């Protein structure tokens, strides 16, 4: 096992899949010659050539629509949207087309494609380089949505996504790229889509999170342990299809749950998790399910004071977790 950064793990995942399967190719803005604006595909152009690492025009609908067509005709495209904030022009292709190909043909067609998009805040990206989109797309039946939080999961989920016969929206947290490091197993290390992961066991309360918040929640769990509160940390990893069994299991185990995400509060994933727990684990609850989320404002502004006010961090999570512990 080697320690890698989150972005290295992603790059490796793409490289390995492209080496292993000639039908896999990458298409997106700046992914070729430049290696991606974050260098996520650095080196792939040189290794696989311009036919398999395609610099697309500045047209998101095109990127996704072409990927759909290629997937129809036997390929496994990885379409990159440069920032999740720019995915809107491709909404029609993603929601109306990609998500529905299989259902509308009663299984005749399926699209083994991946749409990668860097998301999340904390990089002074302001309103249009910081957004969370998992709830928007998680809502659409027919799409799979994943959001890894560790390098091992990033690689394992990307590979699983490429091999999956359905369209997968792969959300990679841009702040985690170089901030989050971890052990990545040798070999495929496939992580199943649809399976959450208990990253830390505990018994007094549960922290449910994904993406960058996972890292913060693990920090918080350490701090809580020092104060005698044993926190379990459940990493969702997959937003859709969400691992209901794991969510219910942790809720039953501790009776106290705090769901954490940087996305806006209203109709965010925490609302869904909360509803699942209410419906299935109500009798085991010792406290109402709590949510700690981003506020309902359009993404985080540029100025650091405002960005900090928007973003969650370990201190904010710790305070809320203590509130839950004391309930």
């Amino acid at each position, binding site marked *: 096992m080697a320690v890698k950064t989150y972005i290295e793990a992603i790059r490796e995942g793409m490289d390995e899949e492209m080496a292993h399967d000639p039908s896999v190719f990458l298409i997106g803005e700046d992914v070729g010659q430049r290696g991606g604006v974050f260098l996520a595909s650095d080196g792939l152009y040189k290794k696989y050539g311009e036919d398999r690492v395609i610099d697309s025009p500045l047209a998101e609908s095109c990127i996704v629509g072409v990927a759909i067509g290629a997937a129809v005709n036997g390929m496994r495209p990885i379409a990159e949207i440069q920032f999740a904030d720019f995915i809107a022009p491709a909404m029609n292709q993603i929601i109306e087309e990609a998500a529905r190909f299989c259902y509308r043909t009663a299984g005749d067609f399926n699209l083994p494609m991946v749409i990668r998009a860097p998301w999340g805040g904390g990089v002074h990206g302001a309103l249009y380089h910081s957004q969370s989109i998992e709830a928007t797309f998680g809502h659409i039946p027919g799409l799979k949505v994943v959001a890894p939080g560790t390098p091992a999961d990033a690689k394992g989920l990307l590979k699983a996504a490429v091999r999956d016969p359905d369209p997968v929206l792969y959300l990679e947290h841009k702040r985690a790229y170089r901030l989050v490091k971890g052990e990545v197993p040798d070999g495929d290390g496939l992580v199943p889509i649809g399976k959450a992961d208990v990253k830390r066991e505990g018994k*007094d309360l549960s922290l449910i999170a994904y993406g960058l918040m996972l890292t913060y929640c693990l920090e918080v769990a350490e701090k809580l342990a020092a*104060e*005698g*509160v044993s926190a379990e940390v459940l990493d969702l990893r997959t937003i859709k299809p969400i691992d209901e069994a794991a969510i219910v299991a942790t809720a039953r185990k501790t*009776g*106290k749950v705090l769901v954490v995400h940087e996305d806006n509060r209203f109709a965010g994933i925490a609302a869904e998790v909360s509803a699942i727990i209410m419906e299935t684990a*109500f*009798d*085991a*609850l*010792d*406290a109402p399910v709590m949510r700690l989320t981003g506020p309902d404002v359009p993404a985080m502004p540029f100025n650091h004071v405002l960005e900090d006010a928007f973003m969650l961090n370990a201190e904010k999570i710790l*305070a809320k977790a*203590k*509130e839950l*512990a*004391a*309930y």
Partner: protein
Amino acid sequence: MASVKMPQLGESITEGTISKWLKQPGDQVKKYEGLVEVITDKVNAEVPAPLAGVLKEIKVKEGTTVTVGTEIAVIEESVGAAAPTPTLPRERGRVTEPVAQESAPSIAAPVPEEVKSGGSTESRTRLSPAVRALIEEHHITDAELGRIQGSGVGGRISKKDVEDFVGRRAQPVSANGEQRQAAAEAPAVAGAETRVPLTPMRRSIASNMLKSKQTIPHAWTVAEVDMTNVVRFRQQVKDSFKQREGIDLTFVPIIVKAVVEGLKAVPVLNASWSDDGVVLHKDINLGVAVSVDDGLIVPVVHQADRMSIAGLAKSIDDLARRARAAKLTIPDVQGATFTVNNPGTFGTILSYSIIAPPQAGILAMDAIVKRSVVLDGDAIAIRSMMNLCLSFDHRVLDGVSAARFLQGVRRWLEGFSEQVPLY
């Protein structure tokens, strides 16, 4: 920064032991809010904060004994009173956990603003689904539930509280009564009868009384005591006593003193039955029954044999006060080796009390009534007479010992004079 020192909790008290810190560093503290519980050889007391602010530092750990005047904590004074937050239940007169238990984490928990629950009793009785499931699973009775302290917001009984309780449940049940439980429902009226639901205290008393009568062969004997000297003496000193001590000098501490002397003379009454042998207790811990709203509670004057009448008076007064305010601690109600009961306040002249196991006896002091009696020399006089009714465990002792004990008590009381030291 303000320094909090070990207070003098009673005259002649020179030191105190920190029993339990009710606040942790970082907590907001209101003026007069309970800060720490202190045990002395006479009085267990809750020490209030002398000012409002934030508790900065605890100087003396729980279990440590320090002399009066020692700095025990530092409070950072807040300018303008701290915003009132609903206080955690520890300050509100619940039976607190025994000191030995205290390894449970105490988090400096800011109370969430979402908690809109009103009075703490309301929050106590609102049981979460997880708690209800545990109650069912472990067959926790209402009585037991009443004894669980809620560590959650607003006094809520949390899942952890119940789990901790279940873990400790192996301990012998305290035979000394229950704290008041405010959860009374409206009685169900059904035609010709009214059914009054059982409070936890009632349940507890019922179970204890039944157990006592089923296991202890009760015998009963009575001595008549001429209390005239005591009455006279008390009449003389009660005002100055009140002025000096701030509390009334009732007959109880005087009689308790007599009982203590009687127990010293006949130690088999300060004992417990066991199959291996009668256990004679070294200390005389006297349970003094106090009547409260829906029942009886018996706080304990520990090592009563070491106390003066005044000391007993203070101790009993304090215990009674706290009993009625539901502020007794676990040590307050544990460890009695003999019990005295005072039904006489209600005018009864003969009472048959039920022994509190594992004690060997219980003494009821009935009303002091003026009667005409025949004195030595066959003169008739009006004297203040009181019956002392002793119930005793006939396994442990026989009528002879019982009678000798009563004789000892009677003689002490009848021989009362100003010579008897109050202090």
